[in-house]
């Protein structure tokens, strides 16, 4: 039972971390290596809003999400758009930006004390005989709601549909009058927003530390590769796969190996099916 409950929680956590990354990659083809940095930035902004500006808790959370989204969009609009389409430069540039943010925070932001965000709801609950605190349940709820909203957004909203069109065929989308640059900025906003969302629900469970940024990046990448880069359904399924395997590792082996599992998952996936569970990148390319 414990495995089931914590497996689900862990899986949704991973899915939340990965969603922003896979969204941006799927739409604009940008492997956003600054993803982890945006995650931590949200935590930092939320903390500052609460502690320095003394804002209301919920308001601070939502504001920080939007600010992160704007930061992401600004990064894309000002810098990354100039190297659009050059895969190597995109990776290096976004990685450099992420590093600069994270290490900058380490140098100037996080000093001395421990930084934590308050949880949304205190207390815990008994589910299937397992004690679970409410924040973790909150994570699952938020995760499921976000996935649902995202689905609705991309299937029924004009911008969402445009984003999906771009993901499928950018040139065709261009011809239909979709401004691909603006859509890419929108995708980056959304991706950063999702990274932020993951941060505000996940960070209260622990301290805000710079290392978490790297971990989130690694886990997001692991999930995306296993699921197939750019495939949302693949990412969610992969999150569940890795999530459960991780919990099993913790239960039966040792908790240190959690991250090793991620690497192994990647390597096994790459050997067996390089395009990932739901990757269509490769086949599409070959079809030309």
């Amino acid at each position, binding site marked *: 039972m414990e495995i089931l409950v914590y497996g689900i929680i862990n899986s949704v956590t991973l899915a939340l971390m990965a969603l922003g990354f896979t969204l941006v990659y799927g739409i604009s083809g940008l492997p956003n290596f600054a993803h982890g940095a945006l995650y931590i930035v949200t935590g930092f902004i939320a903390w500052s809003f609460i502690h320095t500006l003394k804002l209301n808790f919920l308001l601070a959370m939502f504001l920080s999400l939007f600010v992160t989204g704007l930061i992401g969009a600004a990064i894309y609009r000002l810098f990354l758009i100039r190297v659009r389409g050059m895969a190597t430069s995109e990776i290096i540039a976004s990685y450099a930006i992420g590093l600069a943010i994270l290490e900058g925070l380490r140098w100037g932001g996080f000093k001395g004390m421990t930084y934590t965000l308050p949880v949304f709801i205190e207390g815990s609950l008994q589910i299937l005989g397992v004690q679970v605190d409410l924040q973790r349940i909150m994570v699952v709820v938020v995760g499921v709601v976000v996935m649902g909203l995202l689905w609705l957004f991309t299937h029924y909203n004009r911008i969402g549909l445009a984003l999906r069109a771009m993901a499928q065929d950018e040139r065709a989308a261009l011809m239909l009058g979709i401004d691909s640059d603006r859509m890419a900025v929108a995708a980056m906003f959304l991706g950063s927003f999702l990274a932020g969302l993951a941060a505000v629900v996940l960070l209260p469970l622990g301290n805000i530390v710079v290392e978490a940024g790297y971990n989130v990046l690694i886990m997001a990448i692991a999930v995306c590769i296993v699921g197939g880069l750019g495939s949302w359904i693949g990412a969610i399924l992969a999150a569940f796969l890795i999530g459960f395997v991780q919990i099993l590792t913790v239960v039966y082996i040792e908790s240190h190996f959690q991250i090793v599992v991620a690497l192994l998952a990647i390597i096994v996936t790459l050997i067996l099916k390089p395009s990932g569970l739901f990757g269509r990148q490769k*086949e599409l390319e070959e079809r*030309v």
Partner: protein
Amino acid sequence: MTSETILEVKEISKAFGGIQALSNVSFRLHQGEILGIIGPNGSGKTTLINCITGFVHTSSGKVFFKQKDITGQPPHKIAHLGVTRTFQVMRPYYSLPAYKNLIIPLFSPRARKYGGWRGGGKLGDRNTVCIDILEEIGFERDSFVPYKLASALPTGYLKRLELARCLALKPEVILCDEVFSGLSASEIASMIPLIERLQMEGITLVMIEHRLKELFRVADRVVVLNFGQKLTEGIPEAVMEDERVKEAYLGSEDLSDYV
């Protein structure tokens, strides 16, 4: 033209997601012939070549080269056996001069094994062989064209370069993916003797074409594809008379006729 079968395709099918790109296509390729493959856009011609040369895994069906099953082999192994291909979207090595493009196929195990050109291993040799092949394929030896960067070459030369890349491997079969498309009438006119000469040298050719008039001048037989299925095959004249082929090209009111 009744000689032994060099390449046999047996009931190949390929689906991309929900799209059935090829369904149960079979044909035989005879030694030394030129086989044309025609069909409207999206009828699965390029996919067929991709399946034969191993760039795409077939969903079902088999490919035999000289009675040997080569289904599912990686592309470089198939090329090593002597089944080479050109690409529809031309893929030269843009940052290299035209003649240096041929160094790479000449470096392959097959070229080293069957090349027969003066060792081919030492530094200078390969460069001269490159120029030889380019001359054979229609680059003027003494002009500067072979020394130009591949990125600066016009389409006509790039198509020739694609063929030259295959020739460098001393191939037995060349699968040409639309070598005539994008060329002017006079360029095609100068390509046709080249193709005929390759045939005389004993190379078997498969040509995917949209330019039917030019294709029918060289092709011995033609296979017609439509919606991933083989409509018919036969000599060019007979194929052109076929009602189904006319309909496939001219379009018919009721598409369900074909399914």
